[in-house]
C-alpha cells in the first residue's frame, strides 16, 4: 500500500460517508471536502453534486484543488448558482443533503463555534464569524471536520453556538432539527454520535491509540462499540485524489 498523508485519509473517510445522488455544500478553504466529493464521484457516487462556498459553482472539476472558495480557479463548472440562490436553498431545507463544516470549537453534541473563545462581549479570541453555519440543521445531515484535534477545539460546550449540533436535554423545545451531524473527522480519528446526540469514538486512524484521542478531547466521549481502525485510503482512492491534486495540497 502506498504512503498517504493524514489529510488524504480524511478525504477518503469523508468520501466514503457520501452517497450517490446527494448534494453537498461546503464553505471556506474547500480543498478537503471538495477532494472528498470528487473522490466520491469518481468511485461510488457518480451522481453526487457539490457546491463550493461563495463561488456557487456546482461540481467544478479543475485540474488542481483550489486553496480558496471564491477564486477564478473554480471556473468553469457545468453550472454556477449565484450566492443569494445558494442561501435561499439552504433556507428551503430540502435542496441540500450534506453540509461539510468545522469550527474554532466543536462540542460534545456537535455544536460548532466560529465566533469567539471566551465571553462574546470581550472575547479572548475573536473568530472570523459564523458565515453559513446556522444553516447546518437545514441539510439532512452534516459532516464536521477539523485539522485540530485538541482539548481547546473539542470542548464540552462551545462558548458560543454558531452552528447547531444535536439537541441536548435542555434544548428539547428547539423547534427544528433534522438528522444533525453524523460524523466528525479529525487527524486522529473519526467520531459519531449516540442516540442521545453525544459524541463517541468510531475509529482511530492507523498508528493512533484510543487513549491518544481521549487525551486530545476536552470532554468525555460517550461509550460505544469498540473503536475500529480507520481503513486507510486504498491505492485506487489515492490515485484519484492525486489526479486532481498535483500540488499536493492534501499532503502538506
Amino acid at each position: 500500500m502506498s504512503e498517504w498523508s493524514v489529510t488524504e485519509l480524511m478525504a477518503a473517510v469523508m468520501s466514503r460517508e457520501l452517497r450517490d445522488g446527494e448534494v453537498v455544500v461546503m464553505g471556506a478553504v474547500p480543498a478537503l471536502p471538495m477532494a472528498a466529493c470528487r473522490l466520491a464521484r469518481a468511485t461510488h457516487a457518480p451522481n453526487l453534486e457539490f457546491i463550493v462556498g461563495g463561488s456557487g459553482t456546482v461540481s467544478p472539476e479543475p485540474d488542481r484543488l483550489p486553496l480558496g472558495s471564491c477564486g477564478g480557479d473554480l471556473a468553469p463548472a457545468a453550472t454556477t448558482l449565484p450566492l443569494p440562490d445558494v442561501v435561499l436553498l439552504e433556507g428551503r431545507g430540502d435542496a441540500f443533503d450534506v453540509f461539510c463544516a468545522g469550527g474554532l470549537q466543536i462540542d460534545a453534541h456537535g455544536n460548532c463555534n466560529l465566533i469567539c473563545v471566551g465571553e462574546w462581549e470581550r472575547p479572548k479570541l475573536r473568530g472570523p464569524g459564523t458565515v453559513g453555519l446556522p444553516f447546518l440543521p437545514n441539510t439532512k445531515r452534516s459532516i464536521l471536520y477539523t485539522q485540530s484535534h485538541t482539548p481547546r477545539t473539542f470542548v464540552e460546550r462551545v462558548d458560543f453556538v454558531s452552528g447547531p449540533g444535536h439537541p441536548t436535554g435542555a434544548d428539547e423545545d428547539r423547534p427544528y432539527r433534522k438528522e444533525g451531524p453524523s460524523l466528525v473527522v479529525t487527524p486522529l480519528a473519526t467520531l459519531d454520535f449516540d442516540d442521545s446526540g453525544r459524541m463517541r469514538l468510531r475509529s482511530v486512524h492507523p498508528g493512533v491509540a484510543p487513549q491518544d484521542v481521549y487525551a486530545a478531547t476536552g470532554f468525555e466521549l460517550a461509550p460505544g462499540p469498540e473503536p475500529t481502525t480507520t481503513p486507510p485510503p486504498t491505492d485506487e482512492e489515492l490515485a484519484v485524489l492525486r489526479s486532481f491534486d498535483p500540488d499536493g495540497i492534501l499532503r502538506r
Partner: protein
Amino acid sequence: MPFLDPAEAVERFLEPDSGLGVGGMQLSAAPMALVREVVRRRIPVARLITSPSASIQADLLIAAGLVREIVSPYVGFEYLGLAPGFRREVEGGRLRVLEIDEGSLTHALWAGSGGVPFVPVPPGLDLTDIPAVDPEMFRRVTDPFTGQERWAVRSLRPDTVFIACAVADEAANVAFDRFPYTDRIMALAARRLVVQVEEVVPAGALADRAPGSTLPSFLIDAVVVAPGGCHPTGFPGRYEADDEALGSYLRAARDPETFGRHLAEIVGEDAGGER
C-alpha cells in the same frame, strides 16, 4: 459624468460617519482601489457592512481605526488565517460587532433593495446564540399566518456601496464576469453606488450579457476604472489573489507599529497606476 477617479468618487459619494457596504468575497473582488482611498483620506465609517465573507477590504479599514461598528458574517483571510485588525479591535473592545450570519445578511440586503422593512429568518439561526446578542439586527416577530414566534432580521440599506465589477461600457452600465457573489444584491440596496471596474468596453457591448449579470447605469453614481484595483485580492478570470502581499499585510497588521509603516506603502499603491 459617472466616470470618476477614485479620489473624486470617494469624496463625492462617501459621507464621513455614514454606512458603507463593501463587496468582494473571501480573497476575490474586493474593491481595494476605493477602500485604499478611504484610508488615504481617513474617512470615518459609522457602520461597515460586508459581503458574507470579507477579508482585507474590511480588515484594512478596521486596522486603520476608521470603523465604529461592523455588520459582517465573516472577516478573515480564508486559507491564510484570521484577520489581525478585526481580532485586535474586537478583542480590545474598540469595535462593536453586529453579529449576523450569511443568510440573514443576504436577506437583509434583499429586503433593503425592495422597500421590505424586515424578513423573518429561515430555520437554523433560531438554534444559535447569534440573534440574542444582536438586538439591533434581530427581533422576535409573530407570524400572522401561524401565530408562531420567530426571529426577524432588519433590512439593510447602506448609504454608500463599493463593489468591483469586470467591465463598464461607455454608457456606464457594468457587468459581472463569473461570480456575482452577493455584490449585485448589495448594489441594489445601495443609496449611493460606486463601481470599480477592470476595463471599459464600447457602448452596446454588454447587450448579450444575461439579465442578472449586469447593472444599468441609472443605478450607479460613479464608475471608477482601476485595472488590477482589487489587488492584493484577485479578480476571478483575470488575476488571482497575491498571497505574498496578503502575507505581508497579515504580518504587519499584527502590531500597530509595523502596521503604520505598512499602511503608508499600501495606500501609496494606486498612486500612479490606475486610470
